[in-house]
């Protein structure tokens, strides 16, 4: 095996990310953001060229390293999502992280590189590598504010449970290797196609792999780490965790469960249905009682993971497209909502309680309006972007005859609206306390404006975005 030009082309985005990540470690603080965005732009340009290459050669994918890594439209779609998330998160991070900003941004890029490997992985080893690179970067990011005890606690919990889940994934992967005799997804697919889906070895492999990945999206019952990690992490990291980590794990779930593991659908579909329902239920009900906005948004991301899983339970084209649309819209509304929280300060420290939003509409009407848009979108109300994601998931469930799950998914919108509107009530109906001030920099404002504009634009004129998401299914 030799390193060919095609291998190089396929892997260029990852290489760029790592190189820029390393360069950032040696940059001066002033140059961090320009350097980071140059890196992201270069990566984006390469992704664009890969996309053009696929179109030009009329092929479904660009395979590299003799099949261990693939660049298809599905991977490129998710890569674009990761890129957008990283850009937004990096833009809003600077005011929060006064120290060690260089290491922080480098970690963002390394995590993103891991996500790229997950998205394009066509081999269990590549995937595991990506998963670990992403997770390790996140362990560090969550505990980044070293002097904060909550941050330490959250990071430690996350690390221990995360390591356990990685172990589960590794075990599951080894079982898949034992069954198929190869770590290539294509080989596993052809081996499983002829196998009885109720074979106990296969079920064990499915369960361990599934549990390990479900941990990453904080699906019930693997969610225990999430609220503490969200509360402890710096706010931009919480947003990054909520969006990018979930998106990467969903990409992997789709890649495995609708690919090589599709023949065993009869086994995993009911299990996944139960997990999705439990995730929705717990996420929504637990969020009601939260007074800390980071925890509230943490539980709400658990409930969003439930909707994403419902899309996978439906598992047809509409469902997968639904997950893509959902994640596409989810990025902007979630990062937006977290960013609004991030701008609130009480005596220099971050103000994170729902009551800290009191009277925001009076003091900062634009911020309050944007937050309203993000919250309506998170709840899934038209005409905001969030409606479309939920709409597709529900559509897929109705299409595949999962009426009960569809009804449950719909009714949880009401519960979600209830707790999101506690924040709306604080912003619009309460009087400002005067102790909370809003601090933002121009990069934060730009990120907010972009997120808000896209959340509305996708909701009002979804066509181009739907086409983009559609391309992810065409593989």
């Amino acid at each position: 095996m030799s390193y060919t030009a095609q291998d190089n082309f396929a892997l260029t985005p990852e290489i760029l990310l790592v190189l820029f990540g390393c360069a950032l470690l040696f940059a001066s603080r002033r140059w961090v953001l320009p350097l980071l965005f140059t890196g992201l732009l270069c990566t984006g340009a390469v992704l664009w060229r890969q996309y053009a290459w696929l179109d030009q050669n009329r092929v479904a994918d660009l395979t590299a390293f003799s099949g261990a890594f693939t660049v298809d439209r599905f991977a490129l779609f998710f890569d674009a999502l990761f890129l957008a998330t990283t850009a937004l998160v990096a833009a809003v991070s600077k005011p929060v992280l006064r120290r060690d900003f260089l290491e922080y941004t480098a970690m963002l890029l390394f995590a993103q590189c891991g996500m790229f490997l997950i998205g394009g992985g066509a081999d269990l080893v590549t995937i595991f590598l990506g998963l670990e690179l992403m997770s390790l970067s996140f362990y560090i990011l969550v505990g980044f504010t070293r002097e904060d005890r909550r941050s330490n606690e959250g990071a430690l919990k996350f690390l221990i449970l995360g390591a356990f889940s990685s172990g589960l994934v590794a075990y599951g992967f080894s079982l898949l290797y034992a069954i198929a005799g190869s770590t290539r997804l294509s080989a596993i697919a052809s081996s499983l196609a002829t196998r009885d889906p109720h074979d106990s070895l296969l079920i064990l492999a499915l369960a361990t792999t599934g549990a390990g990945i479900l941990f990453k999206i904080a699906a019930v019952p693997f969610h225990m780490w999430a609220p503490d990690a969200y509360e402890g992490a710096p706010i931009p990291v919480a947003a990054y965790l909520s969006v990018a980590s979930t998106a990467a794990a969903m990409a992997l779930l789709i890649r495995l469960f609708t690919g090589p593991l599709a023949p065993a659908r009869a086994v995993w579909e009911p299990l996944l249905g139960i997990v999705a329902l439990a995730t929705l239920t717990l996420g929504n009900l637990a969020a009601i009682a939260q007074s800390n906005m980071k925890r509230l948004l943490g539980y709400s991301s658990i409930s969003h993971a439930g909707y994403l899983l419902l899309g996978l339970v439906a598992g047809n084209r509409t469902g997968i497209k639904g997950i893509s649309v959902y994640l596409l819209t989810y990025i902007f509304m979630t990062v937006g909502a977290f960013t609004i929280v991030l701008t609130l300060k009480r005596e220099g420290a971050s103000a994170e309680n729902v009551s800290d939003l009191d009277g925001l509409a009076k003091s900062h009407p634009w911020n309050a309006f944007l937050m309203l848009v993000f919250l309506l979108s998170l709840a899934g109300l038209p005409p905001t972007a969030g409606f479309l994601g939920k709409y597709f998931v529900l559509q897929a469930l109705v299409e595949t005859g999962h009426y009960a799950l569809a009804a449950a998914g719909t009714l949880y919108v009401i519960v979600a609206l209830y707790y999101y509107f506690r924040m709306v009530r604080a912003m619009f109906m309460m009087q400002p306390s005067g102790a909370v001030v809003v601090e933002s920099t121009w990069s934060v404002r730009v990120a907010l404006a972009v997120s808000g504009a896209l959340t509305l634009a996708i909701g009002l004129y979804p066509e181009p975005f739907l086409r983009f998401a559609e391309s992810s299914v065409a593989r």
Partner: protein
Amino acid sequence: MTEHLLSITLFLPLAGMLLLLLIPNSQTRAIRLWSLAVSLAALAVSLVSLARFSNSASGFQMVERAPWIPTLGVQYALGIDGISLLLMLLTTVICPIAFLASWNVTQKVKAFHALFLLIETATLGVFLSLDGFLFYLFFDLVLIPMYFVIALWGGPKRLYAALKFFLYTLCGSVLMLLGLIGLYFAHIRQFGYPSFEIAELMKLTLPLATQQWIFWALFAGFAIKIPMFPFHTWLPDAHVEAPTAGSVVLAGLLLKLGTYGFLRFSLPLVPHASSDLTIVRILLTLSIIGILYGALVSLMQREWKRLIAYSSVSHMGFCTLGIFALNPIGIAGSVLQQVNHGISTALLFLLAGMMYERRGAREISAYGGVASSMPRFAFIFGVAVFSSAGLPLLNGFVGEFAILQGAFQVGRTWAAFGVVGLVLAAAYLLWLYQRTMLGPITHNENRNLPDLNARETLVLLPLVALAFAIGLYPKPLFDIVQKPVAELVERVHSK
């Protein structure tokens, strides 16, 4: 221009709202005049549609179509038939009146007017949409500004009432969405391409079982909105706590979104389920319970606004009674009753609001003998009461009489219960009038209440005039709805 009449009507208030945001907060007078002007312009454009409307043409008129989300088969499609024409006119008439009635709002004036303009666009959107997806969008869009209107300008329990209203009605509308998605897939399965358009969905032939679950899903959305018994519990809170203009729009317009939904979606799209004997009986029974229960509860109310709120439950019961009589006279009566209820309830809420501004008391017992200090008020209130109670020569009578005729054709019992409802309505309304207006003045505060001023009279007069006009000569209205109602009935009964 002429082929975009409906779009202009629909987006005038929205465009007006966006421009309104440019007016500085302090210019309250400019804000008020601008909103009034925008809503009057919308009224003018909708009157042009009325002039161009043909009573004899079948199907939808002035149809506008443009692709919106082609991947989903969703179109921006607008059009009107007689039913939506009347409700569109009701909307464009009520909105300027609501603005004129809000002259005394002094808090957050700009936000208040902006929200009402948004409500106007959303309401018009519901009545004009010919595409299920678009319909759903507007149906939900109404909720957000209304929530803020109640929660920001409402009475003491406003936060609770606003959230209850929002969650309760949203619960219905998301279930309705499931029903629409069901129709959408049935369409893909039968015709191979996606569409949400009503005309396309009407081509479907569905088995009864499918129609039934879709009917109940749609029912959830519409019944909560109307609200039908037993889904009415959000209504009294929302109506009582809302500011005057909010109550007027809520009762006058938003309740009609539900009955309109039955007429536009349930009946034509799932005709067999809608004419299924069990379903019809359940719906008629719920209507009758609503009529009687709403009337009895109204009879026991001590608060002015709460009484009017419960009377809406009763009157909207007549509307659904007429719809599920499933005959031309019943449905035509129901459409008229929707318009009439809009007029008379708007009058009642406006008058209650004007009195509250003067006196600051909501209890009926705080009044009595007001007629001697406010003769003009007492006269108009008398008209409103008689109109709402369904006295002949006033508008309320026409619709209710037609509905009872329709119900009679289905079964005498239904009509008999309906008549009892009418008698009860007369009782609680006249008793309200007697307790507040007649007799000796029992509270000194009522002795020197100023009578209606010129602006207030101007707010009320158009509605009074309409009440008399429709009551004396309802034929034009019947003519407008005759054709679409006949088509609807034919569709429901063709097996």
